[in-house]
């Protein structure tokens, strides 16, 4: 109880601001329409109009909710108008890209921790890769792959991997380096081999860091996939849904797609959090 009240208060405040915003931003259109029809709008009629327009500047919360409901429950999931269908297209590319990105991040981190040369040569490129605007890179990746005859999931997954490998790399390097001198000396005093030090000390030490960075990585992968869907003229995926919505002024469609993407990201992060709890609890690190 003590936690639901503050949460509900915040939600109510957001909805209030949102409704006020919708009324304010949609009022101009309602007034213009009234002027064209040479009628006068009462204040209550004006407000009612701003909350029920077909193409509002800012759709009201109930309109977005209706759009979401229609997209999720009102369509066959194979339909091009189903948000479930588009979410699945985005999700599959996200997971593929996240898998590639995490694996690359982990492998690079292992290399960086074990080789001074790799530390000095790879890290600057990894940092540089993240300073390039993804909006500039994404179309090039799509075009290059398309010219090689590869379209669909893989190019999007590459863009997702591009964004998600970096947090995993940074977190994993930090994690693998957590064992202190004393713990490494202990291993040395037992004449432990390099692989033994890695599997029994460095890797388990790094897991809390790995999970934290996987959460950032999976959210970044989703952003990467959606950005990858924008320039392709893609017909499927939440990114395509956003793009077609903006072409035709379907703001309700845009907001529905945005909320679906946000829910998807939250779901993915929660899933990793759950796995983290289970793994760390089994390792005795749950406290």
């Amino acid at each position: 109880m003590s936690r639901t009240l503050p949460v509900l208060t915040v939600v109510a405040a957001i909805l209030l601001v949102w409704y006020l915003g919708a009324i304010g931003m949609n009022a101009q259109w309602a007034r213009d329409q009234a002027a064209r029809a040479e009628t006068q709008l009462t204040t209550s009629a004006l407000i009612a109009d701003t909350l029920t327009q077909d193409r509002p500047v800012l759709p009201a919360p109930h309109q977005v909710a209706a759009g979401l409901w229609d997209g999720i429950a009102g369509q066959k999931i194979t339909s091009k108008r189903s948000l479930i269908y588009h979410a699945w297209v985005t999700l599959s590319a996200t997971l593929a890209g996240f898998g590639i990105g995490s694996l690359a991040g982990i492998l690079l981190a292992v290399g960086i921790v074990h080789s001074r040369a790799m530390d000095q040569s790879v890290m600057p490129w990894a940092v540089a890769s993240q300073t390039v605007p993804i909006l500039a890179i994404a179309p090039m990746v799509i075009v290059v792959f398309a010219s090689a005859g590869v379209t669909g999931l893989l190019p999007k997954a590459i863009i997702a991997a591009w964004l998600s490998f970096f947090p995993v790399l940074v977190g994993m390097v930090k994690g693998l380096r957590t064992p202190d001198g004393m713990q490494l000396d202990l291993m040395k005093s037992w004449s432990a081999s390099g692989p033994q030090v890695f599997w029994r000390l460095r890797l388990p030490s790094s897991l809390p860091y790995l999970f934290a960075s996987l959460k950032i990585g999976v959210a970044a992968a989703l952003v990467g996939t959606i950005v990858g869907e924008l320039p392709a003229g893609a017909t499927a995926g939440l990114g395509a849904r956003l793009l077609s919505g903006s072409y035709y002024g379907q703001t309700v469609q845009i907001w529905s797609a945005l909320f679906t993407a946000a829910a998807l990201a939250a779901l993915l992060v929660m899933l990793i959090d759950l796995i983290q709890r289970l793994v760390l609890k089994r390792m005795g690190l749950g406290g």
Partner: protein
Amino acid sequence: MSAAVIEARKISLTFQTADGPVHALKDVDLTIGKGDFVSFIGPSGCGKTTFLRTIAALETPTGGELSVNGMTPDAAQRARAYGYVFQAPGLYPWRTISGNISLPLEIMGFSRSDRQERIARVLDLVDLAGFGGKFPWQLSGGMQQRASIARALAFDADILLMDEPFGALDEIVRDRLNEALLTLWRKTGKTIGFVTHSIPEAVYLSTRIVVMSPRPGRITKVIDSPLPPERPLDIRDSPEFIALAHEVREGLREGHGDD
């Protein structure tokens, strides 16, 4: 004195730093016999820890000759000649106490049944029987340090090297552990090298006390203890004990006079 286990002849170790060379050890000569309990005492920077680490092959001397069990320190390390105990327990939080003691045994390739037998034996030896299934955070600091001693004993090394193992514990726990360590030493007949800051601790535990002083790190005095092997805690109030402690303190003061 019985057969030499550790022999150091003119050991020197110089670290190259940005501020020039630091002489951590200079011309250290020492012979440690089998079953000796040798304490190294001295102020910070006197090289006591560094000397212990050279015996363990965690540091390599830049000069002199060092043999452990008649081998080079490196070979002795591979032959599992010693167990090392640090100031912090260094237990893995994701392993139980048994799992932690099992760690060196796994690395050294002991079979599963052999491991279990050894874990039970050393847990008993440090009075932690029944705590094997606990995680380190469930144990007190003193118990954790006992577990780390059990870990160092598990693979039957003849030599136990201890670097201020009780330095982070409070005095009451420390007294108890000192007593337990003496009992353990008498029972197992291990050769023990023990680094400490504490004069009473050194005098209470040792058969020989090595007094060291800094810049350059060297041995200023080696004192053989006249105390009997059987030492109840109240031996610390005896005139022999107080005289010995005085001798160690004098030795430390002389070392400082050189600065």
